[in-house]
């Protein structure tokens, strides 16, 4: 008995030691999670882990002050709109040294300094678009800081004479059309061709429910004035994908749709996943400051239709694929390395995810883990139409995260197209895809019917013959008796 007890105690101790071993292996200061089919939170392995930070002092200049936007060029250089210091800081591709600082722009031989530059965008040709907010202009510079173009004081019939043009965020498509979010502008994104204002773009329509309409109808004028104004929400961040579609984030208090993918006509063509939600967190109930819908402030379009949203409220980064499925959620608020206080801008390239924190005055870097890389790769392959190749990678994802619904679904679909309906059913059920399960089941049922049709017909035939024979026998026996 005593021996047994000792052994048990040892086991307990051992399990404790092992437990802490596992816990200390995860040094990531936040949870990585996802929502399952029933919208429960499911913790997953970390998809991205902190990989250091860049601040003004680490690259050899004075610290940032209230920086508001970053843009990463194709060559890896990071452009920071250091609004509080009225300058643009360009960080070299090695992230350790300074490339240059742009204080202003030479116009007619005179230096015109920036005043609160809020947004920045760098094109593939290394043209720098700067939303010079307080100077009410968008400045376009080339790689040698020479002025290329300047957009200011837009003229149009739809604009007032004394229109205060205060661009916050800026973005450029392949044809050189400029899109800009304007401070206090609820009509949509301003679109410029060259430096001519061509119109508003992607206006968000206000949804007023029937009940709200009813209450407004019966309210008096004074009451109505005190109610909230039903104005469209403003956009918060911009990015553009390879096809020239604009990704624009907005504040959605319902938490349903915080990002739009706008086609050249300005219509929203974003695809939503199974839960019809591209608004960040799904579980947002509660009464504290920490509850409520995610406040999405920026979007980073990545390879293969994947895009990441940055939540300012809870400091989380939501990554979706082109079909609107949530891939992974990570990040959190705090003061540890790898957490945010006031995240304002997100960018991504094939090395890192970059998040600018205006309060911490630094850019936080995140690098992909094996888990994250596998998901990115599999989703990318599916985006390209190579579902078969993606299967191998989905298997690897399953090895790391057994309950990954996307992986199960991917494997199930592959089995389905390979004709193994029984396995397809198994994995599609695990992946909670009723639509494809139904297809697999239909084929499986047909197979089963075909295989056993002979038996069924034989049994039916025997029954019918037996019945007829029985009736005949009965008739005869009745006759005999009669």
């Amino acid at each position: 008995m005593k021996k047994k007890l000792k052994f048990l105690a040892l086991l307990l101790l051992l399990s404790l030691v092992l437990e802490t071993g596992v816990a200390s292996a995860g040094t990531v200061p936040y949870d990585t999670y996802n929502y399952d089919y029933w919208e429960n939170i499911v913790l997953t392995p970390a998809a991205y882990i902190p990989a250091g930070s860049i601040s003004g002092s680490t690259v050899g200049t004075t610290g940032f002050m209230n920086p508001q936007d970053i843009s990463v060029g194709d060559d890896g250089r990071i452009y920071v709109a250091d609004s509080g210091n009225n300058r643009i800081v360009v960080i070299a591709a090695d992230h350790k040294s300074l490339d240059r600082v742009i204080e202003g722009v030479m116009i007619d031989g005179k230096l015109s300094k920036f005043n609160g530059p809020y947004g920045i965008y760098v094109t593939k040709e290394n043209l720098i678009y700067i939303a010079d907010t307080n100077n009410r202009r968008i400045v376009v510079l080339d790689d040698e800081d020479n002025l290329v173009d300047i957009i200011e004081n837009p003229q149009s019939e739809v604009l007032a004479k004394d229109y205060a043009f205060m661009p916050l965020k800026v973005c450029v498509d392949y044809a050189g059309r400029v899109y800009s979010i304007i401070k206090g502008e609820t009509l949509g994104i301003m679109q410029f061709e060259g430096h001519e204002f061509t119109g508003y773009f992607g206006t968000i329509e206000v949804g007023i429910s029937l009940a709200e309409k009813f209450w407004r109808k019966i309210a008096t004028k004074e009451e109505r004035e005190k109610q909230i104004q039903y104005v469209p929400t403003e956009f918060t961040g911009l990015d553009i994908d390879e096809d020239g579609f604009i990704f624009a984030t907005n504040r959605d208090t319902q938490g349903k749709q915080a990002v739009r993918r706008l086609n050249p006509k300005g219509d929203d063509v974003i695809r939503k996943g199974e839960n019809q939600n591209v608004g960040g967190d799904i579980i947002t109930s509660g009464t504290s400051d920490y509850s409520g819908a995610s406040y999405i402030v920026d979007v980073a379009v990545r390879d293969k239709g994947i895009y990441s949203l940055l939540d300012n409220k809870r400091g989380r980064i939501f990554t979706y694929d082109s079909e609107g499925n949530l891939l992974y959620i990570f990040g959190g608020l705090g003061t540890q390395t790898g957490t945010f206080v006031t995240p304002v801008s997100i960018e991504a390239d094939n090395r890192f995810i970059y998040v600018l924190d205006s309060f911490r005055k630094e850019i936080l870097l995140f690098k992909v883990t094996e888990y994250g890389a596998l998901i990115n790769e599999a989703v990318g392959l599916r985006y390209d139409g190579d579902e078969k190749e993606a299967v191998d990678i989905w298997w690897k994802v399953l090895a790391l995260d057994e309950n990954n619904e996307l992986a199960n679904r991917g494997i199930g679909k592959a089995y389905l197209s390979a004709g193994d309906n029984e396995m397809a059913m198994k994995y599609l059920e695990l992946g909670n895809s009723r639509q494809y399960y139904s297809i697999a089941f239909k084929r499986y049922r047909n197979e089963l019917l075909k295989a056993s049709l002979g038996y069924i017909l034989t049994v039916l035939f025997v029954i019918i013959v037996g019945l007829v024979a029985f009736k005949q026998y009965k008739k005869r026996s009745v006759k005999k008796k009669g």
Partner: protein
Amino acid sequence: MSKYFSKEKWKMLLYLLSHPADGFYEIRHNDKGSVPIAILMILLYSVVITFNMMSSGFVVNNTEPNSVDILSVTFGWIVGYILFSVGNWSITCLMSGEGRLKDIMITIGYSTLPMSFFTVIATVFSWGITEEEAAFYNMIIGIGTVWTVFLALLGIMTVHNFTLLKTIATVVCTIFAMAIIIFIYLMFTDLIGQVITFFKSVYTELIFR
């Protein structure tokens, strides 16, 4: 016990399905019904519903497996059943209904039999269907539900000797009555709780003095 579960009483249950008007009349006036059997029917329906939630085919089953709990389902249906019966009884008393509480309970309990039966049929059927055939599954459940509602309405009408319009009016009133009962229950428990905390605090005041 045999009084409640005699063969005659069980036969009445099946007789109701084909001859509802006669059956309910017999129940009201010749004591052919049994409250324990009615409660058993409600329990049966709870079990059937749990069975349906747990093991209907994947294509039509949208219930999270973790959330299925037979105890809470049964408790819910029993409470709802008693609430409805008491609510209906209190309303029909005022509207000169002839039925006793016993009759109402028997009526409602017996009426759930078609719903239980068709839910089982639908659940078994759902093991062999695809998404396109889900409409048939819903139809089967629908038939059971319509039959049950029909039986319950006819039953309430017969045991109280009401017209159809009056029956529907009482059912609507019953729902309000249920809400009032719940409200009173909540208020009562809350007030009792406050009284208890009051005496508790008086007690603590005294012993710490």
